[in-house]
């Protein structure tokens, strides 16, 4: 049963990992926390569902939705966040909260408050490995999350534009002096983050149903997973998400399912007590 519950935790763990990577990416590239990430995921899911409901094949809807989400992310950066000139962390934080409210209420106005079905992306038939059962959607989500995490890691560490983004996040003034177009890197970051949110939204939709509140509860868990793994670390976010999902499953099975959220956050606090930078986060010194 322990192994089975461990496997059970991987599905939600993959979802938390995707969310954690999304918020870590923004923090890594821009030094800000994006509380509108969950609602970007929600809108992306609705974009995909709307395109599919209009008559296009599912694969086409899945391909098109991330581009629409990316465009949304680019518009938010260009017309909302850039106006704040990225000077104040708290101003940006509040701005993302405001954007979150606008997104959620706009979605209610456009698509209504009820839940919508979304077609399954993976086979419904379970895979039996000995006495254990694992769902194809768990394997699929884990594989897709790992793939995109790998792509993002390569992007940030092996490509010039990725290194420019990291430099801009570390010291915007210094990066500008080195000839980096900081404004453009921030612009691109939001676009990529929104496209990534679309991937998360599409993968979540068959499980969560598409609704305006589909990402509300898990968004908090995504932040918790990012902190657990080390905020700003993409690999840390991925690992933190998986660990959080497994802790929830094991805690629910052996203590009480009603308290699984409490168990997760208690573990998070304990980890931070012993590892203030998270499991894979690195302590960085700010030089004057």
């Amino acid at each position, binding site marked *: *049963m322990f192994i*089975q*519950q461990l496997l*059970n935790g991987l*599905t*939600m763990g993959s979802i938390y990992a995707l969310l954690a990577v999304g918020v870590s990416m923004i923090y890594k590239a821009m030094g800000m926390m994006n509380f509108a990430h969950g609602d970007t995921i929600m809108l992306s899911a609705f974009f995909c569902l709307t395109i599919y409901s209009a008559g296009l094949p599912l694969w086409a809807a899945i391909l098109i939705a991330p581009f629409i989400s990316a465009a949304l992310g680019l518009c938010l950066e260009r017309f909302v966040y850039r106006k704040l000139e990225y000077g104040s962390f708290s101003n940006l934080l509040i701005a993302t909260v405001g954007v979150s409210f606008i997104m959620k209420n706009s979605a209610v106005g456009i698509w209504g408050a*009820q*839940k919508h*079905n979304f077609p399954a992306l993976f086979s*419904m038939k*379970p895979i039996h490995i000995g006495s254990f*059962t694992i*769902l194809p*959607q768990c394997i699929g989500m884990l594989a897709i999350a790992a793939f995109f995490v790998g792509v993002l890691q390569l992007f940030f560490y092996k490509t010039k534009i990725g290194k420019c983004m990291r430099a801009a996040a570390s010291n915007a003034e210094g990066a500008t002096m080195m000839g980096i177009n900081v404004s453009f890197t921030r612009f691109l970051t939001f676009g990529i983050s929104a496209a990534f949110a679309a991937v998360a939204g599409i993968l979540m939709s068959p*499980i*969560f*149903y598409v609704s305006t*509140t589909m990402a*509300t*509860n898990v968004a908090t868990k995504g932040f918790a997973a990012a902190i657990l793994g080390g905020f700003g670390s993409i690999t840390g976010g991925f690992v933190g998400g998986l660990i959080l999902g497994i802790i929830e*499953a094991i805690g*629910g*099975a052996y203590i*009480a*399912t*009603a308290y*699984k*959220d409490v168990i997760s956050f208690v573990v998070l606090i304990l980890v931070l007590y012993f590892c203030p930078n998270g499991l894979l986060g690195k302590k960085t010194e700010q030089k004057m």
Partner: protein
Amino acid sequence: MEKLCNQDNANVVISSTASSCCLADMEVTRAARCPELAPASTAASLTEQGNEYFFRTAVTDSSNVVCLYDYFTGAMNGSRIAVLYESNDFGNGGYQLLQDYAGQYNVEIIDAQAYNVGDVDFSVQLTQFKEEAPDAIFVWGHYEEVTIMCKQMAQYEVEIPVMGTGYNSPYLTEMGGEFVEGIMLSTCYTTADPDEKVQAFDAKYTELYKASYDQNAPQAYDTVYMIADAVTRAQSIDREAIQKALTEMKDFDGLTGVMNFDNTNNVSKTCKMIKIENGQQVLCD
């Protein structure tokens, strides 16, 4: 509720759907001596507060438990159940009643797991239930989580009958599709009931609103007419007069049954067992 009772000076209020909200707002109506009728809240604790101004016109969870256990131990000849319930006043109250009545029906509750509203992953609970193999899974929750749970039951190949209450909604079949086929529930109202009044209400509602509905609609309908009946008998719209008339209500013949208020201001209703077959509600044999 403050606004309704103390600013708008309502003579009588029809209260919230959620039992948790009723528990909170009934303190306002108690202080204001304003009759409050709850047409949708089922938690047993609502009428255990000693509030003589609070009247429950919804079916009680006790009636649902009796109906469920009668069918489970009778037609299904079952004895071992697992319970999955919402972690709130509604779910906790239902689970408590299942425990209270279990001895009377010789039912053994072999496992009970809670879930939070909004949960989407029931793999932990379902894999445990599959190993424990109860005769049925009793669910005390709403359609949003029940439809997801039924889908995951199919994915994990958990072939155990599901029965319960709280999810009598047209969205159950709309969202659940093939995955809720065979699910059973107890209810005080179903369109499968051949009763003339029920069929006439169903036709009229569908014609007016072009939408389907759950049991809260007929219960609310009965509630409004109970208030009208009380005002007619009292010949007054005074709060105290309405409260007195409601306690004296005798054999009110509504859509959801012939009803009287007992000494705790609960109405007595007889529930029916229904099953989902081919996307429709049918009465269980």
